[in-house]
């Protein structure tokens, strides 16, 4: 019996081998993603759907590999690039803003611009313009937006209603809520970092760093010092702290959902998760990102991640492009938005039934999308070389201003020195 089974197995193996040799071998590509939980399950589903439909038709099989958080995935890519092991790179990768510089200089990067030369028939006009712009660097379109979000203001509507307050629009409005500070409850907790500071400076009409926030060339210095924008923001921030409504620590989702922090500024993509955790204990309100003052522009830049490609020969490049287009198509984008809280990066997705039904049930989802559309396109997210250092530098300097009661001028000098120094050092090593 055993022998028979073995014989059968060998035969079927031989048959399948010869069958493979005869039939067209599918093109296999690898997709690295950083989507977990709800988003992760959806991404796995899209991969399976693609393999069963478009992939089957075109002879493409995608293998999805979860690579952990964006930071893990980016540091893995950096490691491979420094070791020049280009074969190890995937065909398609989900990348956040911190990976832009490395990717754009990768020898085997296959940018959207290159893909459009290979496929001139492609029409990308339905993609959301601000989302597309976020993934450009020095004039090149690096990737296509996949998980798109923006920073919004979450507030505890139940608590604010009870005290007779409307949704806060500006930092001053938040300051007026100081009376709600009570035992174990803070009104607002935040420390500005690279993207949030850039948003507030952008509202004041200024970039954080030169070369249009590092998108049109390498950032080498701060560009918010001489125009006074940094000083203006810091003054407003200090006033907010003086009002007592601001706690000088990072906002915490746990505190907010536990009802111990009333206002939080965070990514719009957290809506679904937050509603699940609040579990009906209070009503969640969402408002556009806080403005510095009444006179400043409103809005915040795009955040999230895009899909980039690497060159592994013509067949795999073509397969990768087909897969990227599938993931950014209207139907997938609408479905992904409905399941997570990310915003559809494809305009056609906004007209889809899925999205419309979602908006009808949870109007809060619309806030982020509207904000994205209304944000002036001069506001760009920041790309700097020493990204982690820069990020924590901003946090520490501004937090020190409040803790050590430094004057606004002193803080501006401090930041010019610290952050400017990092940019100069980086520029020196990477001319």
């Amino acid at each position, binding site marked *: 019996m055993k022998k028979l089974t073995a014989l059968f197995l060998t035969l079927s193996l031989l048959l399948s081998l010869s069958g493979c040799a005869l039939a067209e071998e599918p093109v296999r590509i690898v997709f690295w993603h*950083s989507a*977990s939980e709800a988003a*992760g399950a959806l991404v796995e589903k899209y991969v399976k759907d693609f393999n069963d439909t478009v992939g089957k038709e075109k002879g493409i099989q995608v293998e999805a*590999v*979860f690579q952990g958080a964006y930071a893990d995935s980016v*540091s893995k890519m950096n490691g491979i690039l420094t070791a020049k092991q280009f074969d190890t790179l995937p065909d398609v990768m989900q990348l956040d803003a911190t990976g832009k510089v490395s990717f754009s200089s990768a020898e085997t990067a296959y940018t959207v611009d290159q893909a459009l030369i290979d496929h001139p028939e492609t029409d990308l006009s339905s993609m959301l313009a601000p989302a597309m712009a976020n993934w450009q660097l020095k004039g090149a379109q690096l990737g296509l937006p996949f998980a798109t979000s923006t920073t919004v203001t979450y507030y505890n509507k139940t608590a604010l209603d009870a005290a007779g307050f409307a949704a806060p629009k500006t930092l001053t409005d938040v300051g007026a809520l100081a009376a709600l500070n009570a035992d174990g409850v803070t009104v607002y907790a935040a420390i500005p970092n690279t993207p949030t500071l850039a948003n507030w400076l952008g509202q004041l009409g200024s970039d954080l760093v030169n070369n249009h926030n590092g998108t049109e060339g390498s950032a080498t210095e701060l560009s918010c010092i001489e125009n006074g924008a940094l000083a203006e923001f810091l003054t407003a921030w200090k006033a907010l702290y003086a009002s007592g409504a601001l706690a000088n620590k990072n906002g915490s989702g746990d505190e907010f959902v536990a009802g111990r922090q009333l206002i939080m500024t965070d990514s719009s993509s957290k809506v679904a*998760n*937050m509603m699940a*955790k609040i*579990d009906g204990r209070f009503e969640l309100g969402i408002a556009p990102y806080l403005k510095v003052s009444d006179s400043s522009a409103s809005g915040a830049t795009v955040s999230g991640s895009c899909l980039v490609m690497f060159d592994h020969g013509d067949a795999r490049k073509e397969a990768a492009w087909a897969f990227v287009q599938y993931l950014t198509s209207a139907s997938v984008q609408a479905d992904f938005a409905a399941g997570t809280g990310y915003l559809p990066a494809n305009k056609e997705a906004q007209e889809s039934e899925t999205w419309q039904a979602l908006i009808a049930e949870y109007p809060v989802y619309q806030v982020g999308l509207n904000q994205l559309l209304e944000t002036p396109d001069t506001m760009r997210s920041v790309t700097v070389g020493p990204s982690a250092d820069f990020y924590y530098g901003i946090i520490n300097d501004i937090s020190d201003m409040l803790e050590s009661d430094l004057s606004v001028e002193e803080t501006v000098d401090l930041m010019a020195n610290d952050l400017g120094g990092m940019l100069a050092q980086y520029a020196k090593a990477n001319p």
Partner: protein
Amino acid sequence: MKSKKGEWTLGALAVCLGCLVLFPLFYGLMGAFKSPAEFVAWPPTVLPRSFGYLKNFETVFTQLPMLRYFWNTLVVSVFSTVIKLAIALLAAYAFVYFDFAGKKALFFLLLGTMMLPPDTLTITNYQTVSHLGLLDTYLGIGIVSFVGASQMFMLRQHFLSSPKPIREAAQMDGCGDVRFIAFILTPMSMPLLLTLFLQAFVIQWNAYLWPLLVTNTNEMRTVQIGITMLTTLEGTNYETVLAGAAVALIPAVLLFLFLRKAITRTMSGGAIVG
């Protein structure tokens, strides 16, 4: 000589201290049975409402190929620990039983490896391992931990304190170095070797940064990478992470309990007299 009462007070005190030490683990394990809403509810509790909420464990096993991760980690931990100890044993043997030129310098050269923070060596080692074509292999994960200077040091201390005439007698009987190591030295050092094995195994089992860097595919991942992948972009779901941590702990704890017994048994056979 001690009074019975004193003895029991001592025992009770020790067990209480033990509970205090283990409390964080107990707390973590209990948290794994909580639902997300239960987790953020005020006031916080230690015990879950019920032990019926198993969704967190379900998430761990459905979202990740946990068994595969266990297997990978086990293979890497066992083989790299054995190699590490073997290499350290040979080196310790050379240092204790031979006199040779450059002995002192070589000893401090090897001991010096302990003082170099591994985090500072990662990038270059990654390049070495990838040039050797060992990315995504068990050997690639284990190879950077083959140098066990502290194990070498402990074994040397142990050999130094062992009775001197043993080797001379063995040599008189015509027993060569390899046979002496294999049949006399190794059995003689068993308690220490088991302790060192346990320590090195656990360190390898718990390794995080390096395996994360050198594995690119799901098939080669280790448990620690798996559980940290449970944290999400939408915010940490503590309960799922705690479930993952609990699951990852079990094999290490089992091995520990098993080896502990062996170590105490061999240990009490040696120096201790009631």
